[in-house]
C-alpha cells in the first residue's frame, strides 16, 4: 500500500525566511546545523500558539534535515534554504547540490518513505549496530513528525528537498 501524503501545491504559501549559503561554508562546521535550526525555529515559532513548544519541535525536525544535507551533498555550489507558511503548515525547502549518485540517494530515500513498513524500518535503524543510516532523519520526519516529503530536480546539479510539517497537530 502506498499511503504517503504528498506535499500540497505551493499556492498561497508565504515566504517567511530564506538563507543562501555556499554549501562548502555550511559544511565546514557541524555546529551550523544546530545554530541554524535553533535560530529559524525561534523566529518562526513566535506566532504559534505555544512558541516554546513549537520552536522546540521545529528545531528538532529541521535539524535532522540539515544534518542530512550536511552529510550528503556535492561540493562547490549554493545551498538554499527557504521556509514558507500556509496556516498551520510550514514548508521547508532545501536546495542541495548533488551529483547523479547523491540525487539518487535522496530520490530513493524519499520514495521509500511511502512503504508500509516505514515505522519498522525507522525503528530498526535506531537500534541497528554499525554506522548511522544516512536516511534516518528523513524517516524520523515522516514517522514521528508526520512530515510530507518530496523531491524535485533543481537544475542538473542540485535537488530540492521539501518537507511540510503541521507540528501543532502532531502535538495534539
Amino acid at each position, binding site marked *: 500500500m502506498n499511503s504517503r501524503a504528498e506535499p500540497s501545491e505551493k499556492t498561497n504559501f508565504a515566504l517567511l525566511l530564506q538563507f543562501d549559503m555556499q554549501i562548502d561554508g555550511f559544511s565546514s562546521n*557541524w555546529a551550523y*546545523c*544546530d545554530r541554524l535550526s*535553533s535560530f529559524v525555529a525561534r523566529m518562526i515559532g*513566535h506566532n504559534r*500558539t*505555544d*512558541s*516554546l*513548544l*513549537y520552536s*522546540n*519541535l521545529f*528545531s*528538532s525536525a529541521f*535539524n*535532522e534535515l540539515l*544534518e542530512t544535507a550536511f552529510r550528503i551533498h556535492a561540493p562547490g555550489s549554493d545551498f538554499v534554504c527557504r521556509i514558507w507558511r500556509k496556516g498551520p503548515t510550514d514548508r521547508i525547502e532545501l536546495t542541495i547540490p548533488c551529483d547523479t549518485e547523491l540525487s539518487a540517494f535522496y530520490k530513493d530515500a524519499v520514495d521509500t518513505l511511502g512503504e508500509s513498513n516505514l515505522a519498522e524500518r525507522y*525503528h530498526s535503524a*535506531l*537500534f541497528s*549496530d554499525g554506522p*548511522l543510516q544516512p536516511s*534516518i*532523519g528523513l524517516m*524520523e520526519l515522516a514517522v*514521528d*513528525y508526520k512530515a510530507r516529503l518530496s523531491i524535485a530536480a533543481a537544475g542538473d546539479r542540485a535537488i530540492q528537498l521539501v518537507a511540510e510539517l503541521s*507540528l501543532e497537530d*502532531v*502535538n495534539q
Partner: protein
Amino acid sequence: MLDTLTPTYTARFDENSQELSLIGSMRPQHEADMAKCLQVLEQSLRLVRGTLYINVKRLVRVNNIAFRILAAALVNAATERPDLKIKIITSSVVGWSTKKFGVLSAVNANLIIEEYDNEFYPGQTFVENSDFIHVLRTQTKMTWRHERSILPRHGLKPGMKVADICSGIGDFAVLMQKEFNPSRIVALDHSKSSLAYARGVAEEFGISGIEYVYGDASEMLLEDNQFDFVTCRHALQVFDRPELILKELFRICKPGGRVYVTNEKNSHCLGEPHGESIQWTYTEVAKLWHHFNMDIECGPKSRRLLQDSGFDKIQMESFMVTNLDGDPQDFADIIESWKNLFAGDMAKQRGDSPEFIERFKRGFDDHIFAALHPKGYAGWPIWVASGRKPL
C-alpha cells in the same frame, strides 16, 4: 555526586535518588562525543539497585546520532541487569521527547517511559479545577487595584522584559501588558486548561504579544538571564517545593533585575460581624492546605524564601483586599468559590466529618455576610515581596 560537563549537555548522577539527569542539548557530529554521557551512565549502573531513574525532562535537543548511542546503552543495561528497572522520565513540555524515548519500552519491558505531567504536585487536581480557574479572574481584578501602584515601587517600569510564572488564566499578564507596555512578556503555567483559557481571552479581546508558554516552573526551558522583572503570584504557596521555583525565577532573571512574589496567609483573613467564626474557619483552611502539602500561610515567609534563594535588596509590604474595594459582591464571589473548593472537594478528600464540614462552611458564610453587610468589613491579606538578583 558525579558531575560531568561538556559544552552542551550535563550528565549528573545523584546517588540518593538513584537519578541520572541529562540536561541540555545533545547534537554531536560523532558518536565519540557521547563518551561522557556513557561514562556517567556506566558509573550510575554500578551504584544503583532496584530502579534507576533517567531524568530527561530538560534534555531539549537530541539528534539521531546521540539517540542511537543512548538507546543502545540503555537496551544493553536492561539486558545485562534484568534485576533493574530503568525509568525514563520525559516531559510533555519537550514535545518530541515521550514519542522518541517511547520506542525503548518495545525493545525491553524493563525500560519504562513515564511522562512527568499529571500529579506532579499534591494539590494539582484542586488548583486546576475549572471552578477554581474562574475565581482567579475575580481575585486578580481585586488585587490589581492594589498591585497596579505597588509594582512600580518594586521596580517594574515600561519597556522591560517581563515574565509571569505560574500565570494561571493570564489576566495579570494582560493587565501588566496594558499598564506597563513591556518589550517582551511571557506567561508560563503548567495547567493546559488555564493556558487555553488565557489564549481564548487574548484572542477574544484582540490582545497580541503575550507569549503563553506551557511549562513547569521548577524546571523551565526559558534561558538564563532573560528578564528584567519576573513575577510569580499565589503560586509558591501551592507548589510543595517553592524553593525549586525560586531557584528558577532567579535563573531566568537578569543580574540586577527583580523577582516579585505574592503569597497569602489565609489564617489572617478577617471580618466583622462574626469575627470568631470567620477566624476559626480560616485557621482550619491553613491546616487543610497543609494536609495536602501546600503552605497557604507562606506570605510572611516570603522574605526568608527570597533571601535563601540568593536575592538581595529585598523589599516587602502587605495589602488587604476588602469588601470596600469596588463591588462587595466580587469579594463575596471569591469567598463562595473558596467555600466550594475547600469545604467541598478538599475536605471530602481529607475525610472530614459532616459536622466539621458544616462548621467549616459557616465561617465562609459569615465572611460573605460580613462582606455584603452595609456596616460589615471583610478582608483578605496578601504579602508582596521582591528581591534583586545580585549584579
